[in-house]
Structure formats: structure tokens, C-alpha cells
């Protein structure tokens, strides 16, 4: 692959031509926050937290491929506030009660809110009602915490048939993830662990395994999210 150069906030960066912008930025030690994009996987573009400005337009960074001479604006007060507002909307959309959540301290959404120094969402809480789905033998779906990133929909598939185990149901504010419980009951332990791990919030919970890490020793207790990319230099 030929190398190209592009700029993020005036910083000269190099990447492979056509590389995903979020990944190219990470290679150049710029952390663009995401909740749906996973390295090496296809782009989902659902969370929009990776918003950047290219050619004067706000765009989801994970949907872009870098090209020679591209100029990306990322760290401006306006864009940071927009990103923060997106995070806040996710918090008010459903019922995110961190003190009672198994994923607290390991949750990407919570960690990003910390990074953006969110004290309280600026929007009004909706308090919708969603029932917990627990018919699968080893999994629970806690819809109250779901942010509909669709990672589980795309990246967890039945190994024999390649069919999706999780899928989307309904529209607008009634959208929710549903699970094919017959396929889900056939999931291996590793696949269940993967599903729990890739969920950026605590919406997919493994039964019988709750608060197994002590406060202070969890993933984001030690370092803020994105630390491995930017070493904590960029706080936004």
C-alpha cells in the first residue's frame, strides 16, 4: 500500500491510502472516540461520536477513508461540544444507572462521558420502559442500557450458518435489539464472552457473572479511555 500524508488539526500524519480515518488517526496517536467502530471490522456508523469536520462538513470519522492531502478538523470547542451532546443524548435516551450496572468501570459510554467531563446530561431524562430479556440460557439482554450501536448485530454470527444471532426490531425510539434464542443457546463460551466484551455498555450480560472486578481495578479505573492511543495527552 502506498503511504499518503494528511492533516488532523494541522498535525502532519501518514497512513496507508484508503485506510479508515479513525484507525489512521490512532496510528498517529490521535484518539478519535467511537462507540460502534472496532478496529479491523467494517464500519457501522451508528453512534456518530467520532464526528470530525472534513471540507466544512460534519461527518462520522469511521465512515471516511483517508486520502492524500485530506485536512481533518477534530479538536475544536464546537466539535467537542457536539460529541459531548451526542454522549449526553445516549444517557437520557434510556436508563443508564451506573451504580447498579455490572459493566460500570468497563463501560465505553461511561468512560467517554468521563473523558468529556460530563457532570449531568443537558437534556431531560426520558425514563422509558424496557423489560429485561432473559430467555437465553447464558445471556441477558438489558435493553434499558442499550445504545443501539449494532456491534452485536454485525459481529456475532452463528459459526455454522453465518446467520445473525442478534438483530434489530421496531423503529424510532422503540428500536431495540432482539436475539434468536435458538441460535443464542448454541453459542460457545468464547462467543458469549466476545458478545459481552464488544458491547460498549452493559446491555449484554453473561448470566452468573456480575461484579467480578473490584472497584479501582476495572478497565477504566486505571486509565481513561483512549489512553493507549494518545497516552492521555488529549483530554477530549
Amino acid at each position: 500500500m502506498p503511504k499518503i500524508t494528511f492533516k488532523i488539526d494541522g498535525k502532519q500524519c501518514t497512513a496507508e491510502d484508503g485506510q479508515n480515518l479513525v484507525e489512521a488517526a490512532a496510528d498517529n496517536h490521535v484518539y478519535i472516540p467511537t462507540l460502534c467502530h472496532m478496529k479491523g471490522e467494517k464500519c457501522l456508523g451508528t453512534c456518530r461520536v467520532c464526528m470530525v469536520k472534513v471540507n466544512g462538513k460534519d461527518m462520522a470519522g469511521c465512515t471516511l477513508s483517508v486520502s492524500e492531502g485530506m485536512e481533518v478538523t477534530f479538536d475544536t470547542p464546537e466539535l467537542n461540544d457536539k460529541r459531548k451532546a451526542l454522549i449526553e443524548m445516549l444517557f437520557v435516551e434510556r436508563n443508564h444507572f451506573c451504580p447498579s450496572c455490572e459493566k460500570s468501570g468497563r463501560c465505553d459510554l461511561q468512560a467517554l462521558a468521563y473523558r468529556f467531563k460530563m457532570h449531568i446530561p443537558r437534556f431531560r431524562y426520558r425514563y422509558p420502559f424496557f423489560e429485561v430479556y432473559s430467555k437465553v440460557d447464558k445471556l441477558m439482554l438489558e435493553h434499558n442500557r442499550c445504545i443501539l450501536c449494532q456491534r452485536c448485530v454485525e459481529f456475532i454470527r452463528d459459526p455454522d450458518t453465518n446467520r445473525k444471532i442478534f438483530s434489530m426490531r421496531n423503529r424510532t425510539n422503540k428500536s431495540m435489539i432482539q436475539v434468536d434464542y435458538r441460535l443464542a443457546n448454541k453459542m460457545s463460551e468464547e462467543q458469549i464472552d466476545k458478545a459481552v466484551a464488544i458491547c460498549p455498555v452493559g446491555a449484554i450480560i453473561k448470566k452468573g457473572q456480575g461484579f467480578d472486578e473490584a472497584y479501582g481495578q476495572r478497565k477504566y479505573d486505571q486509565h481513561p479511555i483512549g489512553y493507549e492511543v494518545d497516552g492521555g495527552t488529549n483530554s477530549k
Partner: protein
Amino acid sequence: MAEQTASNKPVVATISLAGCFGCHMSLLDIDDRIVQFIDLFELNKSPVNDIKKFTKRAHVGLVEGGCCNDENVKVLRYFRENCDVLVSVGACAGNGGLPALRNKMPLQECLVEAYLDAPTAELGKAIIPYDEELPKLLDRVYPCHEVVKIDYYMPGCPPSAEVFWDTLTSVIKGQGFDLPVELIKYD
């Protein structure tokens, strides 16, 4: 630190609404700084000293817990009227916290489940408690900022003693309220 007379010390008031007093415990967790606290601040209405009514206007009011009944709303408005700066403390004041788990269902269902259909309810004799002395429950639990204007928020369940100290000292100095990232926790 210069000794301040009782008359010109900043006045602090605290209250617990629909909370568990965990935030007050966390405030007391400031260890030996409690001595500094007494030097720096004057505590007015608070469960800590059991002063029931404001005897003077407070500079800072710390509110723990959300509003789950009419009594909470009354007390919160009383605080807003008597405090220059009102700080919402902890998860319950900010988003309703655990009491707000009932927001997903109608109030009637909660009361029936708790008092009539409870496994320990006496058959045929169970009633939902009512008395004019009892505060009336609201249809749902409201975060404090949906009831009155709140100036600052302390996240955490509870916010750590450091957060309390940082907030109190910076608010009193009239500085902006900027918590370092490592102190922002929601659990």
C-alpha cells in the same frame, strides 16, 4: 489560615431528600480536613447539626437525593430560596438514582406490589398506607434540576470526599468548577 469570625465565614447547608445519606457519609470522609472545614465554613441547616430551619442565608447548599414526594419538593424549594449557590450532589440528585428505577412503571403498580401483593402482606388486611401526615408520593422520581435551578453538579454514587472538598473550596473562592477527569465517577 487566617481565623475567620463566625459572622463572615461562608455558610454551608446540606439536606438529604430521596437519598440514602451515603453522600453525607462521603462528606464526613474528608478525614482531618474536617477541622479545616470548621475553620473555613459555618454549617447552617443540615442533618449533621440538626438545625431544622435556616437561621441565616447560606452561600452554598448541598442537595443529596432526588424528589420522590411533595415534602422533598417543598424542602428543595426552601433550599433554593435560602441558598446563593445550589449544588446537586450524587447520582440520585442528578438522575433520580436507584429510587428512579420506579419511573419505568406507574406509581399504582409499585404500591400494589410493595403493600398488597408482597409475600409478607397479611391476606385480606393489607392496605396501602395513607394518612395526611404522610408525604404524598409523586408520579415519578424527579432529578433536582427538573424542579429548581441547580448551579453545579457533583457526579458520583457517592461523590468521593475529594470531590466534596474540591467543590466546596472552589465554589467558595468564586472559582469555576472544574473537576479533574480522575475524580469524575458515576458509581
